């Protein structure tokens, strides 16, 4: 297992790539019954993520909750506002057709959410105790909601509050458990590390590596915008305001796996987008796969290069 350590974020990436290769070549794993389905399909991502969020919540206490909210707030806002600026800017200048073959639909769906599983796994690997808890709030800005609000699908009144409470529930439970059960915090910190390989494998079980080139170069361009443009702005603010090394800023610069379904969801509500759906879906799918592979590499490089500097500066 030593070679896990040589690969960037190996504890997540090795299982993820193995499972993605299996899925790409053989398709869905054998779902004979509930347990094999849980092991071989992407169905368990939600569970593993929920557990991870609960464990993340347990790392939060009264002494650090302000710092957690500050760091998560800065990163989330920088991440989403940069995405919004690009989507709205392109829409204003180029219209719905967009630019570089990327429609406004593709941009909105590809830029306005992130893969929270990658975010949490990378923070566990490279961050401190506060970083491990960030994804607890990161879950508030994943999902199709922001893309749909931006495209005018729904007003603020339609924001599903119960769904938001739901997505933060594991964190809340975790905070309670961490507070009331002595030692749970330490146990859960290790549990988070134990979950990563399983989460990586589960994530890979829905990744078709062929998606990378299905949208030709335009998918790559979308991924580059996510990583280089949004990523560097987020890292900038993470360093300037949070006074952190910036790896958490990279870690959030992905396209969420669920984003693939969003173009069709949008078009189902507003047929104006109908014609853009096939290409946008392919582009978003490419960005999902490319960012899931490239972002951990950059985060790893960055963390190794800059973490020591900041930690040293503190002392």
């Amino acid at each position, binding site marked *: 297992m030593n070679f896990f350590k040589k690969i960037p974020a190996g504890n997540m990436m090795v299982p993820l790539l193995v499972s993605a290769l299996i899925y790409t070549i053989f398709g869905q794993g054998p779902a*004979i019954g509930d*347990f094999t389905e849980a092991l071989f399909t992407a*169905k368990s991502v939600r*569970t*593993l993520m929920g557990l991870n969020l*609960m464990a993340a919540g347990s790392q939060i206490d009264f002494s650090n909750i302000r710092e957690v909210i500050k760091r998560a707030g800065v990163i989330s806002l920088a991440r989403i506002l940069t995405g919004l600026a690009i989507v709205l800017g392109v829409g204003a200048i180029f219209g719905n057709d967009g630019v570089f073959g990327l429609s406004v639909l593709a941009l909105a769906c590809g830029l306005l959410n992130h893969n929270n599983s990658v975010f949490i796994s990378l923070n566990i690997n490279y961050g401190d105790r506060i970083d491990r808890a960030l994804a607890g709030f990161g879950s508030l800005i994943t999902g199709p909601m922001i893309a749909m609000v931006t495209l005018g699908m729904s007003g603020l009144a339609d924001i599903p509050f119960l769904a938001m409470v739901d997505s933060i*529930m*594991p964190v809340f439970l975790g905070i309670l458990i961490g507070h009331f059960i002595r030692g749970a915090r330490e146990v859960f910190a290790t549990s988070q590390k134990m979950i990563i*390989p399983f989460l990586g494998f589960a994530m890979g079980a829905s990744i078709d590596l062929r998606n990378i080139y299905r949208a030709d170069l335009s998918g790559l361009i979308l991924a580059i915008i996510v990583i280089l443009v949004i990523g560097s702005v987020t890292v900038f603010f993470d360093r300037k305001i949070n006074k952190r090394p910036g790896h958490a800023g990279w870690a959030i610069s992905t396209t969420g796996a669920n984003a693939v379904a969003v173009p069709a969801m949008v078009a189902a509500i507003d047929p104006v987008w109908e014609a853009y759906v096939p290409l946008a879906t392919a582009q978003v799918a490419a960005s999902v796969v490319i960012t899931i592979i490239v972002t951990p590499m950059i985060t790893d490089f960055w963390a190794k290069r800059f973490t020591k500097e900041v930690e040293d500066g503190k002392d």
Partner: protein
Amino acid sequence: MEKIKEIYGKIPAASIVVPMVIAALINSLIPGLLNIGATSGAIATEDGLNTLVAITLLCVGGQLTVDRLRLALGRGFTLFLAKWLTSLVLGYIFFRLFGSAGIFGISALAFVAAISNHNNTIFIAMTRDYGDEYDLASAAITAIISVPIFTFISLSMLGIADISPESIIDLILPLAIGIGLGNLDKSISDFLSKAQAYTMPFLGFAIGAGIDLMEIFEGGPGGLILAFMTIASSFLISLPADRLINKRPGWAAISTYTTAGNALVVPSLVATIDPTWESFAGLAQAQLGTAVILTSIFIPIVARLWNQRFGN
């Protein structure tokens, strides 16, 4: 694992029982709170449970390495076979005499589920206190009875429930992959063993989220009897086998008779596979819940007393 032990201290099987009780409390006081949507449901309902049981299966398989097998060949297998034989023999007698509905409100399903698996964490803790390296290696083999595979096979063999071969393969496949991974590299095996220990609290939580404490109170007397029957079962085949075949004092045999927290998933699973059990599932789960708690308290005590009295 040391850390978990140190933290939960004296409560036996705490890493699974404590989260279970907490989730059960939340679920009983505010029903539905743990299942308000997709994310919270994913950790507290059947989906979460299935994932965690699958991971536990894989991790248990990962501990079954060739090295350990060689070390533990005699002792571990004797304990395992004796335990399985006990559940088949007693399960058969129980089913023959009392039928599906059983006696004292304890159904055949609850009885077999209680005696056919055990909490390996407690077994490991006992071997740390009284055993040697061979006993500790046995834990890799006795780990197989900590997951409900043999409960299913026993129920199926005894004709108590109509369980399809697929649902047994469904349980064995994750275990087999774990065996493969664990033998690939020692560090993977070590990781999986650690992963099992550290995901156990979540397993307990997911199990607890399906428990209604009112049912436990209703199942109380039945659970008490079930716990007593489970403890008594250890003296029938396992204890003589450990003393006569293994030439060991016998505390290890008794230590394999805790009812595992995993057993709590059996009733609802069996009811999904074989609907005739649907009406018994709730009560069976409640009784098993009581048995899990009581056996994890009393088995270590009984084993210790036995060791003091007959150890030499």
